[in-house]
């Protein structure tokens, strides 16, 4: 008995030593010799063959497949293996893994505000150190580059590059039923209101609105606020509002909120009524448009919403969209966008190469062709868009008199993903009045 135990123990110890020796031996410290050219060129020359770059992001399911498909070509040519891991709880898991010292090489942030938190903590690699700014300026609108520049502990840094964008200022409608009923697509705000009145007079509710989204309930309402801000006040005011210089409790923001309330709370304007806005999930809210007969007719949402539509509907036949028109013509035809920004956490040559690759339109071409993504790169081509909806959205963004990023995504987390969502929700469900809501949002702004 005794001897057996000792033998087992001995064996285990030996096995352990052997195993640790094995792991130690597999580490590869050798570094390839320096060569010339940008990192991307060096990658295509095969210099980083066999290396692995890890990526994390919020897209899962079909988006993840499309993303992997679009970088396949790059992986084959360079031999760099990009391992993407998507997670639904990305917001929480990314901050845990960064704080835990286990950051992925590259992370895809759907909200620049979230990235800014990490930049503040000094966790993000400054892309200025190796990317050619001239090339960047040639391939992005300056406003995208400005939005990617964030304040780190040692001054401003280039915190990331934009991968794909979404257009938000779109109103969707059930085209077939819409045409049969003889309604016409409105081009101005007055026409939009007239159409809404017409639909209401015909006995239907014109708008489908839902802002429920689990822990993120309220974000759809903040999109509406941003759209109306862009259409009722100047761009300077919008920018000030996003940075916190213009208070929520100001005439401009109040006016936007009231414009929104006029439309949302008007009797017979929204399917289900005021309280149902809060209890209806944003993804379920467009579904009544596609019942027979439609129960509501208009739905404002970004181009990603099409993946929530019932299966089997065809773009341009069963549904279509129009531009959410401007309200005050002095402010032109602004477009609200959102997008994914890629940031780098580990500085290795192959990671640099991948980041450089993401600054080119080619990196999203596959995704654009597969549908569901719009490229912010200037070297991308409208021909890539395989369906009319995506192309239309890309055109709207190109034709816009001004483009602004989703304000709540840019605000600090405590406001942009916190009090702005929550207080708007409470206001819409009628638990607090507008005054209290606006003051509470202001109060949450970090000092």
């Amino acid at each position, binding site marked *: 008995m005794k001897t057996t*135990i000792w033998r*087992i*123990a001995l064996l*285990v*110890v030996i*096995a*352990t030593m052997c*195993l*640790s020796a*094995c*792991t130690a031996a597999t580490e590869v410290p050798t570094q390839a010799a320096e060569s010339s050219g940008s990192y991307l060129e060096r990658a295509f020359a095969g210099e980083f063959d066999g290396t692995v770059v890890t990526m994390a992001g919020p897209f899962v399911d079909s988006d993840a497949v499309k993303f992997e498909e679009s970088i396949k070509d790059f992986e084959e040519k360079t031999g760099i293996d990009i391992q993407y891991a998507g997670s639904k709880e990305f*917001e*929480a898991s990314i*901050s*845990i893994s960064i704080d835990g010292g286990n950051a992925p090489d590259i992370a895809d942030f759907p909200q620049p505000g979230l990235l800014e*938190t990490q930049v*503040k*903590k000094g966790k993000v690699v400054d892309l200025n150190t190796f990317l050619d700014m001239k090339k960047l300026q040639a391939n992005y609108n300056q406003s995208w580059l400005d939005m990617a520049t964030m304040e780190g502990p040692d001054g401003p840094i280039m915190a990331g590059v934009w991968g794909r964008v979404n257009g938000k200022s779109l109103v969707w409608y059930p085209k077939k039923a819409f045409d049969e009923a003889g309604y016409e697509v409105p081009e101005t705000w007055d026409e939009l209101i007239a159409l809404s009145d017409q639909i209401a007079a015909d*006995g239907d*509710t014109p708008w489908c609105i839902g802002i429920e*989204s*689990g*822990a*993120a*309930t*309220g974000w759809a309402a903040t999109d509406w606020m941003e759209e109306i801000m862009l259409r009722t006040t100047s761009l300077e005011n919008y920018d000030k509002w996003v940075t916190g210089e213009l208070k929520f409790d100001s005439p401009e923001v109040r006016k936007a909120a009231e414009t929104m309330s006029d439309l949302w709370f008007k009797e017979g304007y929204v*399917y*289900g*009524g005021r*309280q*149902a806005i*809060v*209890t*209806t999930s944003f993804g379920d809210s467009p579904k009544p448009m596609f019942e027979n007969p439609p*129960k509501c007719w208009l739905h404002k949402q970004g181009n990603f919403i099409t993946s929530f539509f019932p299966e089997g509907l065809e773009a341009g036949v069963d549904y279509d969209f129009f531009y959410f028109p401007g309200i005050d013509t002095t402010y032109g035809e602004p477009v609200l966008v959102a997008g994914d920004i890629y940031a780098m956490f580990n500085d290795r040559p192959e990671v640099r190469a991948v980041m450089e690759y993401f600054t080119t339109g080619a990196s999203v071409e596959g995704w654009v062709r597969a549908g569901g993504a719009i490229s912010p790169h200037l070297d991308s081509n409208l021909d890539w868009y395989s369906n009319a909806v995506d192309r239309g959205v890309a055109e709207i963004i190109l034709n816009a008199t001004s483009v602004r990023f989703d304000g709540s995504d840019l605000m*600090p*987390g*405590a406001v942009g*993903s*916190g009090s702005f969502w*929550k207080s708007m*929700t*409470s206001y819409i*469900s009628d*638990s607090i009045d507008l005054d209290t809501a606006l003051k*509470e949002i202001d109060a949450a702004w*970090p000092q």
Partner: protein
Amino acid sequence: MNSSSSSSQKQTGILVWIAANTSRLLISLFVPIITFLILWQGFLFLRDSNAPQIVIVLVSILWGVGGVALLYFISNYIIESLPRAWTYRLQPFVFVGPALAILAWFLAIPTLRTLRLSFLNETGFQFAGLNNYIFALTDRIMLEAFRNNLLWMIFGTFFCLASGLLIAVLADRSPFEKIYKAIIFMPMAISFVGAGVIWKFVYAYKGEGVGIQEIGLLNAIVIALGGKSQAWLLTPPWNNFLLIVIMVWLQTGYAMVILSSAIKGIPSELLEAARVDGANEFQVFFGIMIPSIQSTLMAVGTTVLIFSLKLFDIVRVMTGGNNGTNVIANEFYIQQFTYGHSGRASAIAIILLIAVIPVMLYNLREFRERRAF
């Protein structure tokens, strides 16, 4: 402590004391660490291997469970081969050492770290004094969360215990006991996401208007009875109670299982004797059953109470903490992971910890009364 030492010389006593405690510490730490190292290397190997999944799964289960069992076996073997006095001194630490070491690593040290962070600012670099605590105790949303947690603790715990006890007592007399118990227990097997879905189909509200058909059970019942559909989860404070119902639904199974076993453990002669003496069922229940299972009731009550204090999944899934349903643990999660404000989050966690001290003290007093110590 050194009373077992027969030596009258103080110096030897101190030496023994030091030696004993050092070796206690070593035993507590050393043995788990060795096991950990062995397991660790095995797992690095497994993680990087390309064997079929089923093989990896089986090997790792054997490796893990067997390794831990072996840990106790070997360390006890070593200790028992020591002189008797030393066996006596060290053996307790073979038993409790691994648990203490793991708890220190996974909970105690992170708690201390949290205590430190709760005095620092947002980014965790600068001293913030009591600001985080002031926030946690004065902010409107926090106060609301405290009020709601109080509701959860009182009503959630009470109804879990009451319904668990009722079912346990009644099912004990039914020939279909197992069926009833399985039904009541079933919700425990459902994840929070699943439970969220289930209850969304109960509380769903689609609004008012022509041709709207409710898909929520509760509203369907209200309409069938001639009422008007309601947005159940929007009206504080009632929405809190509707959420508490979910917790009762989920946790009664736990209370029932444990209380039922305790009731079965009451010697039947005791109950029969009371009945023969002419006691009615209520007297038997309150006079004999309740006192007999008191310690179990307390254990179940404590765990359910703590569960309701830490609870956040239900709230997060159902309402996201909106409309006056926020609870402390949800606010902690939001502050920590959404707002990235580790200072405030830590202060909230510490307050949570302090809030439960009375319950713990009560527990310890009970233990002492039962002479468990």
